[in-house]
């Protein structure tokens, strides 16, 4: 007897389609699958780079989507994406606050979890960036990643991080200066070695 192979996606999509009662979620299954396809990788990259911990990034990624599906989401793909990044940023902030209560985000030191990154199979950008990023504060990493990896505008960064739009420019300038200095140092050190 041939057993048909059923994937999670198929089974759950079927269940969702067969269910007479509405799911009560802000998107239908297909819409969510398309949204997930567009956003999951950039969001995971953001979480992994800013937190410096791949396992934590995976956990927060799932939690971000679950909270997103449980919330009243704004209309439009771009707004939804921004909202998702905001949820993820809040989760990151909650995680840091839990680890060190009553310490502002800007005063947090670099996470030691960055040491867990295995650089052996990564390319040059990775080997140069990871040590430099590990010496930056989470808020700086967050701003830099959103601005230069995600290409977000100051307004979008402000919406995601909750910082004032007017202060983004200065914070970003300082973070960029610091990262550029660290990258140059790392590059010259790797060239010497």
């Amino acid at each position, binding site marked *: 007897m041939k057993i048909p192979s059923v*994937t*999670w*996606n*198929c*089974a*759950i*999509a079927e*269940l*969702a389609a067969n269910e007479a009662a509405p*799911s*009560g*979620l802000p998107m239908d*299954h297909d819409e*969510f*699958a398309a949204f*997930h*396809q567009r956003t*999951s*990788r*950039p969001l*995971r*990259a953001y979480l*992994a*780079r800013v937190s410096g911990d791949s396992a934590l990034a*995976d956990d927060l*990624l*799932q939690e971000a*989507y*679950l909270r997103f*599906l*449980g919330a009243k989401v704004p209309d439009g793909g771009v707004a939804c994406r921004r909202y998702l990044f905001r949820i993820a940023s809040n989760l990151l902030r909650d995680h840091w606050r839990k680890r060190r209560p009553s310490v502002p985000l800007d005063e947090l030191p670099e996470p030691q979890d960055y040491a867990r990154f295995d650089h052996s199979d*990564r*390319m040059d*950008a*990775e080997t*140069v*960036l990871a040590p430099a990023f590990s010496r930056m504060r989470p808020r700086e990493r967050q701003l*830099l*990643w959103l601005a*230069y*990896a*995600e*290409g977000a505008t100051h307004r979008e960064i402000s919406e995601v991080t909750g910082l004032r739009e007017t202060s983004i*420019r*200065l914070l970003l*300038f*300082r973070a*960029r*200066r610091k*990262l*550029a200095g660290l*990258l*140059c140092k790392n590059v010259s050190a790797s060239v010497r070695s």
Partner: protein
Amino acid sequence: MKFTYCPEEHELAAALREGRWPAACDPALRQHVEQCEACSDLVLVATTLEQARSEEMENAPAISPGLLWWRAQLRRRNAALEQVSKPIGVAGKFALALSIMTAFALVMWQRAPLWDWLAGFQDLARSKVAQIDIAGQGAAAFPPPLLVASLGALALFSGFIIYLVCRPE
């Protein structure tokens, strides 16, 4: 650190974002970047982060959206159930407190006949069971039927409330 805003930065950022840097952009901009510290920082940081992003996206493990969808539905249902059962729990606790208070008030109100009844039991214990005039003792020792019925109903009701309050979720 002095904040110096370069007027070319906006144009450079656009060139980087649109993938025009370095080959397809204005040669004057390239020349400017070589001399401007802020712009060369921007190029270094933006290109490194862009490359890191593409590497990170290639290595990202795929998570099933179906599984997330199912978990979100489950979470929503649990939250709805919790919301519905919360007032029932509160009402159960209130009813339990009310039952205890009623039982206490009933006992206090009927304490005289109850005391007689208990005294009758003490007499019964003192004398031998075989020597007692059952008809006479029984009538004296037994509490009023209203009290017995009330306590019985209360016990039944309290049992049900305790079950409601203490039942597993």
